[in-house]
């Protein structure tokens, strides 16, 4: 399976965010998005998820399921955790388990949240909410992970869990496309350096 983007262009609110972005990502590869705030990393991830329209260019998933959109084959973890404060941690994940498939209790255990199982999500700390949101990555079996600053408000131990999770996913032949300022110990294979509406796609050479 290979995700290929050619000359992607993004326009939001009448303003051109970026244009001419070309990159690829294949099974087992990790792509790191870097660039200053506002350069369009989030917009790019949302475009891959199918949430933001392509203003130009092509985005194809070779070898993917032709019945599904690219977005339906991705796990999108954006800035928002998509949790419902009145529902308990388990109820929140159980709902997504019914949507994505998978087991809510295993997902809770994966991020060390089992002891918070019956606590309403509204009472969790920012970091715990983040972990609960990221625990969705354990659910279902989606080949492409789109992570937008996943390490924000996570402590060191949780960052390690996240890093392990990303490595394991790549080890299984999954793709990880992440915008992050810490490598999380993940051996990214490629890097897309975004600057002034342009992007340079190259092999990963370590964090800038």
């Amino acid at each position: 399976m290979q995700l290929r983007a050619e000359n992607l262009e993004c326009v939001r609110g009448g303003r051109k965010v970026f244009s001419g972005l070309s990159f690829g990502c294949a099974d087992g590869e990790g792509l790191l998005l870097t660039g200053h705030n506002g350069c369009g990393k989030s917009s790019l991830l949302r475009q891959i998820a199918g949430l933001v329209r392509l203003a130009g260019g092509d985005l194809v998933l070779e070898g993917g399921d032709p019945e599904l959109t690219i977005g339906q084959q991705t796990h999108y973890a954006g800035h928002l955790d998509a949790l419902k404060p009145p529902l308990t941690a388990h109820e929140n994940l159980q709902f997504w388990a019914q949507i994505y498939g998978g087991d809510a209790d295993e997902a809770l255990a994966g991020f060390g949240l089992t002891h918070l199982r019956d606590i309403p999500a509204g009472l969790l700390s920012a970091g715990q909410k983040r972990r609960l949101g990221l625990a969705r990555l354990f659910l279902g079996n989606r080949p492409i992970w789109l992570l937008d600053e996943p390490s924000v408000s996570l402590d060191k131990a949780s960052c390690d869990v996240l890093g392990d999770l990303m490595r394991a996913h790549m080890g299984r032949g999954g793709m990880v496309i992440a915008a992050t300022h810490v490598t999380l110990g993940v051996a990214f294979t490629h890097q897309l350096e975004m600057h002034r509406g342009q992007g340079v796609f190259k092999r990963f050479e370590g964090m800038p």
Partner: protein
Amino acid sequence: MSAFWALMMRDIRLAVRQGGGGGMAVGFFLIVVSILPLGVGPDLNLLSRIAPGLLWVALLLSVLLSLDRIFHADYEDGTLDLLATGPLPLQLVVIAKMLAHWVTTGLPLVIAAPVLGILLNLDPAAFVPMTLTMLAGTPALNFLGAIGAAITLGVRRGGLLVSLMVMPLYVPVLIFGVGAVNAVITGPAPFGPPFLVLIALTLISAVISPVAAAAAIRMNLD
């Protein structure tokens, strides 16, 4: 299909646990209906004559009040992003959420209406037809409202804007709802035709609304 039920049950559970939605709409319904006789005066004959119209207008206002809650919470906390990349087409997401919304706000209003009819001296013969018309008409109100709620997703304090957009669409439902009840009370026209038109309005809106609302949600996620 399990995703459809999961979404619907989650919304019902949220509405029950958070309170607000259904209870607030019914409370508003009660207040409007109990204030109106104070304005119109204690003339029982007059109240009895205008009761169907008053109840229907109060019902419309109560439904309007609850509309901006349908999609907004899911939009703000990112749930809609994930539902849009989920296995369920957005049109079905809209239908699941609409059904949950109807169960938690539309149905309580329909159940409250006959009780409030007593306050307005509603003709005893009109209680059953009144409830039937509201049962048939409230889904149309919810479905039409969903379009407005979806379009104004990105707007802060979109509630008023929803009312302005949706109220004109409610006019046919109001006319045929009140028409059917009045047909029973005063005759001579039969109850059937306006009631069937009301059902038709509900069915038409049930087809158009999910497509329109899903398109509006996509536009707002962009």
